[in-house]
C-alpha cells in the first residue's frame, strides 16, 4: 500500500472496471446488462481528466465508481478502483462512507436540486468536514468563507446564512464547488457542473472552477457531453461510448488530431451547411407589438415584441432562460392571449385566445417540444400518435391513414417496423422524430420548435437538425426555432431574433445579426459560447474584463 503511493503521484487507478445493472423490461424476465465494459484509467495528483460521451456512455457511472457509489440498482461487478494506494472496493460500506466527502467529493449537475432546501448553505457546506472530523466548525466555516471568496461569490461572509432558494443557479453551482473543496479532498468528481446553466453564466462558473482546481491542487474527473467545455479545464480527455473506451489522450491531441472516427464526429459536430435565404416580400406570420403577462398582468414577460416569419424559412429566437422565448410561442399559438398587439397569419389577424381560433388555424400552426417523451401519450403506439392529427384534421381512417403514417415515418427516416411500437421502446432521438412526424401530419405552414434539440446528445441533435432542414426543403414549411444554443442557430437560421428580459434586442437576417458591431447583450451572448480551442476561456474572460474596465 505504501509503495503504491511512493512510486509516483498516482492518485486514482481504475483497472478493468465492469459495472452492471439489472433491468426489468415489461413482460420479460429481468436481465443483467453491462453498463461499463472493462474500462481502465489513471489520474495523477492535481490533474484533471475529462470524461466525455453521449448519454449512456457510462461517464457518470465511472465517475461515481471512484466513490464506490452506484445509482439505482447499479453494481460494480469487476475490476479494481485503487485510490491513494488501496482498492476501495474491498473496504465495504464503512470504507466507502469514510472516503466519501473526505477523499473524494462530488459536484452534481443541478446544484439547485442537489442542495437540501431545508438547511442553510453553510450547514451543508461544512457538513462533510464535521462528519469526518477533519476540522472544527469554526475552522470549516473560515475555510468555507475563503472558498466563497475564491469562487467570487457575492457577500462571501454572509452568503452561507442563506437558504438554497435565495441564491441563483450559477451561484449555487459555485457554492457546491466550495462544498466539495471544503473538506480538502484529493479528488473531485464534477458531473456536468455547467450543463444546466445559461451560456453567459456557464463561462463564469467554468472560470471559477478552473481557478479553484489550480489553486487547491485537487485532482478532478470532469464529466460532460460538451467537448468545447471540457477542453477548457482538462489536462487529458477520455472519450467513452456505450460503456467502452474510444480514445484517451492529451486535450490538444483529442481536439486537434482525433485518432478515432467517433471522436472526430464529436469534434466537428456543429458543422452543418445551410445557405441563408433572403426574406421575401410578404411575411407569412407577423407578430405585431405583442405584450403578454402572467399572473393577471402582474409579471410582464413579453414587452412590445414584433417579428416576421417568411414562408419556408426559419426564424431563430435566442436568449437565456427567462428571456420570454417560450412565452412568445405561447402567445403565437393562443395558449397565452396577449394583452396588447396581434398575431397576423396569411394576411388575417388570428384570434387571441385558443378557443377563438377555427380548426383550420390550429392546423396551420404546430408545435414540437423539448421533452419528446412527455409530449406523447405513453399508452399509444407510434401509429396512433402520428395518425391522430390525420383523423382530427383530415378525417382519414383505416388503410388510408396507415398508408400516410408510413409515408411520414419514411420522411423522418424511421422504417415501417415502428408503427406498432410504444414511445418507451424508442431512443430519445427517435421520440423527437415521431413528434416531428406528428406535427408534419397536419400539413402546417409553420412549426414552432421549442428547444427541440436541447435534451439530446450532440450527435443525435445534429441528426434532428439535418432532418428538419431536409423536411423544410420538401414540405416548404417555416420554422420558429426557439433555442438557447447559438451553435444551433448558426446551423439552421435564416433570420434571428435575440431576446433579453422579454424584449427583442436584436433582429434581422442571420448574416446581419451575426456581423459586428454588436450591441452589448448579443456580444456577451456570442462571446460566451465555448469554442473548441485551448485557452478560449482565458481569452473570453480577459476580453470581458477589458470591456468592463473600459465601461
Amino acid at each position: 500500500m505504501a509503495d503504491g503511493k511512493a512510486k509516483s503521484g498516482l492518485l486514482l487507478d481504475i483497472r478493468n472496471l465492469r459495472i452492471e445493472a439489472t433491468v426489468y423490461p415489461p413482460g420479460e424476465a429481468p436481465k443483467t446488462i453491462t453498463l461499463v465494459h472493462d474500462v481502465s484509467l489513471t489520474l495523477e495528483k492535481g490533474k484533471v481528466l475529462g470524461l466525455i460521451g453521449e448519454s449512456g456512455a457510462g461517464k457518470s457511472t465511472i465517475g461515481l465508481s471512484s466513490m464506490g457509489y452506484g445509482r439505482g440498482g447499479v453494481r460494480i461487478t469487476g475490476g479494481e478502483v485503487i485510490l491513494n494506494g488501496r482498492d476501495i472496493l474491498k473496504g465495504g460500506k464503512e470504507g466507502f462512507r469514510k472516503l466519501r466527502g473526505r477523499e473524494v467529493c462530488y459536484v452534481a449537475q443541478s446544484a439547485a436540486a442537489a442542495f437540501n432546501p431545508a438547511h442553510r448553505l453553510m450547514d451543508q457546506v461544512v457538513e462533510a468536514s464535521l462528519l469526518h472530523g477533519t476540522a472544527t466548525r469554526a475552522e470549516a466555516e473560515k475555510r468555507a468563507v475563503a472558498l466563497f471568496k475564491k469562487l467570487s461569490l457575492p457577500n462571501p461572509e454572509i452568503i452561507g446564512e442563506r437558504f438554497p432558494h435565495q441564491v441563483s443557479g450559477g451561484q449555487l453551482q459555485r457554492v457546491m464547488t466550495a462544498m466539495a473543496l471544503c473538506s480538502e479532498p484529493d479528488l473531485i468528481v464534477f458531473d456536468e457542473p455547467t450543463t444546466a446553466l445559461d451560456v453567459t453564466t456557464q463561462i463564469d462558473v467554468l472560470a471559477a472552477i478552473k481557478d479553484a482546481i489550480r489553486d487547491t491542487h485537487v485532482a478532478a474527473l470532469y464529466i460532460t457531453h460538451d467537448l468545447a467545455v471540457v477542453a477548457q479545464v482538462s489536462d487529458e480527455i477520455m472519450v467513452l461510448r456505450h460503456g467502452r473506451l474510444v480514445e484517451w489522450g492529451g486535450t490538444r491531441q483529442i481536439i486537434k488530431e482525433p485518432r478515432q472516427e467517433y471522436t472526430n464526429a464529436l469534434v466537428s459536430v456543429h458543422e452543418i451547411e445551410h445557405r441563408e435565404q433572403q426574406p421575401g416580400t410578404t411575411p407569412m406570420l407577423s407578430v405585431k407589438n405583442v405584450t403578454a403577462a402572467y399572473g393577471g398582468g402582474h409579471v410582464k414577460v413579453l414587452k412590445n415584441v414584433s417579428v416576421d416569419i417568411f414562408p419556408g424559412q426559419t426564424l431563430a429566437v435566442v436568449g437565456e432562460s427567462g428571456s420570454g422565448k417560450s412565452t412568445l410561442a405561447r402567445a403565437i399559438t393562443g395558449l397565452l392571449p396577449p394583452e396588447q398587439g396581434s398575431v397576423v397569419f396569411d394576411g388575417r389577424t388570428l384570434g387571441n385566445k385558443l378557443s377563438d381560433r377555427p380548426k383550420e388555424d390550429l392546423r396551420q400552426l404546430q408545435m414540437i417540444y423539448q421533452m419528446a417523451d412527455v409530449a406523447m401519450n405513453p399508452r399509444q403506439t407510434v401509429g396512433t400518435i402520428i395518425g391522430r392529427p390525420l383523423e382530427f384534421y383530415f378525417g382519414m381512417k383505416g388503410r388510408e391513414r396507415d398508408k400516410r403514417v408510413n409515408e411520414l415515418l419514411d420522411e423522418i427516416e424511421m422504417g415501417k417496423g415502428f408503427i406498432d411500437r410504444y414511445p418507451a421502446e424508442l431512443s430519445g432521438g427517435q421520440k423527437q422524430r415521431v413528434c416531428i412526424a406528428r406535427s408534419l401530419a397536419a400539413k402546417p405552414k409553420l412549426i414552432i420548435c421549442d428547444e427541440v434539440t436541447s435534451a439530446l446528445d450532440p450527435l443525435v441533435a445534429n441528426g434532428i437538425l439535418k432532418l428538419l432542414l431536409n423536411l423544410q426543403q420538401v414540405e416548404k414549411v417555416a420554422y420558429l426555432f426557439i433555442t438557447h444554443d447559438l451553435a444551433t442557430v448558426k446551423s439552421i437560421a435564416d433570420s434571428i431574433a435575440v431576446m433579453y428580459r422579454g424584449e427583442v434586442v436584436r433582429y434581422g437576417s442571420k448574416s446581419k445579426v451575426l456581423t459586428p458591431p454588436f450591441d452589448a447583450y448579443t456580444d456577451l451572448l456570442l462571446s460566451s459560447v465555448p469554442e473548441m480551442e485551448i485557452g478560449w476561456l482565458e481569452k473570453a474572460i480577459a476580453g470581458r474584463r477589458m470591456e468592463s474596465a473600459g465601461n
Partner: protein
Amino acid sequence: MSSPIVKLVAQRIALGILLLLAVSVLIFAGTQILPGDVAQAILGQSATPESLANLREQLGLNQPAYIRYFHWLGGVLTGDLGTAMSSGQDIATSIKERLWNTLFLAFWAAIVAIPLAITLGLIAVRYRNGWVDKLISGVALASTSFPEFFIGYLLVFYFAVENQWFPAISTVYEGMPLGERLQAIALPAAALTLVVLAHMMRMTRAAILNVMQSAYVETAELKGLSAFAVIRKHAFPNAIAPIINVVMLNLAYLVVGVVVVEVIFVYPGMGQYLVDHVTKRDVPVVQAVGLIFAAVYISLNIIADIAAIVANPRLRHPK
C-alpha cells in the same frame, strides 16, 4: 417573522373561526329540525298547552330561531353552555372535568403514539423493502384493521383479567395521584395508540420515501453520511408537512373519536358523557359537546396548516 408568514397564518386562523361559526349554525339548525323542544322535554307527559306556553315564554323559546341562535352563541362565547335537561346541572361545569379527562387520555396516547409512529416510519424507510419494513407495516396495519372495541377487550383480557397488571375499568377521580391515574388509563391509551399508529407510520414512510428520490439525498450519501443520518437529517425535514398533517388528523381522532374506547373502559370523559346524553335525548348537551368536538378538530387542523407553512423555508425566508 416575515410578512408572508404572518399573512398566511392570519388567513388560516380567520378561516378557522369562520368555519367554526358555520359549524355552530349547522349544529343549532340540526337540533331545531328534531321534533319537540326543550319545554316539551322538561314537562314530559304532564304538559298542558298553557304550561307549555308559559315555559316557552320563560325559556325564550317563542322567539324566532335566529334570535335563539345568537342567544345560544352569546352564551357559548361567555362560557355558559346552558343547562342539561336530564339532570338540571350546568353543562359547562360537568363538561369541564370530563374534557380535562379526555384531553389527559389523548395527551398520553399521543405522547406514546407520535414518536413511536415516526420512529417506526424512519426505521421502515431505512430498511425499506426488507423484512424489518414488512414486519413493521404488517403489524401496524393489523392493529389498525382490528376495530378498537376488539383491541380494547383483547387488552382487558390479557392485561387485566389474565395478568391483572392494569385495572379493567379506568376509574379516575379528582385529586387522584398522577401515578395511579396513569396506571388507570394505561389500557385505553394503549388501545388508542394501536388504532392511530399505522396511519401515521405509513404516512411518514411514504412521505420520506418520496423525498428519498431527490438529488440532495444523493448529495448527502456522497458526503459519507450513514443511511439513518441521511434519512433523519436530510429527508425527514423535507417530508415534515404531510407528516404533521396526518399527525394532527390523528390527534383530532384521539380527542373526538374516543367514544367507543371510553365506553369500553368506563372512562369518565367526553365520549362517555356524549353517549349518555344522546340516549337521554338531552339536546343542549349534545349541542355543546358537538361544538367542542368541532372546535378541537378545527383548531388542530389549523395548527397543522400553520406548522406546514412555518416548516417551509421558502415561506420562512423569502428572497
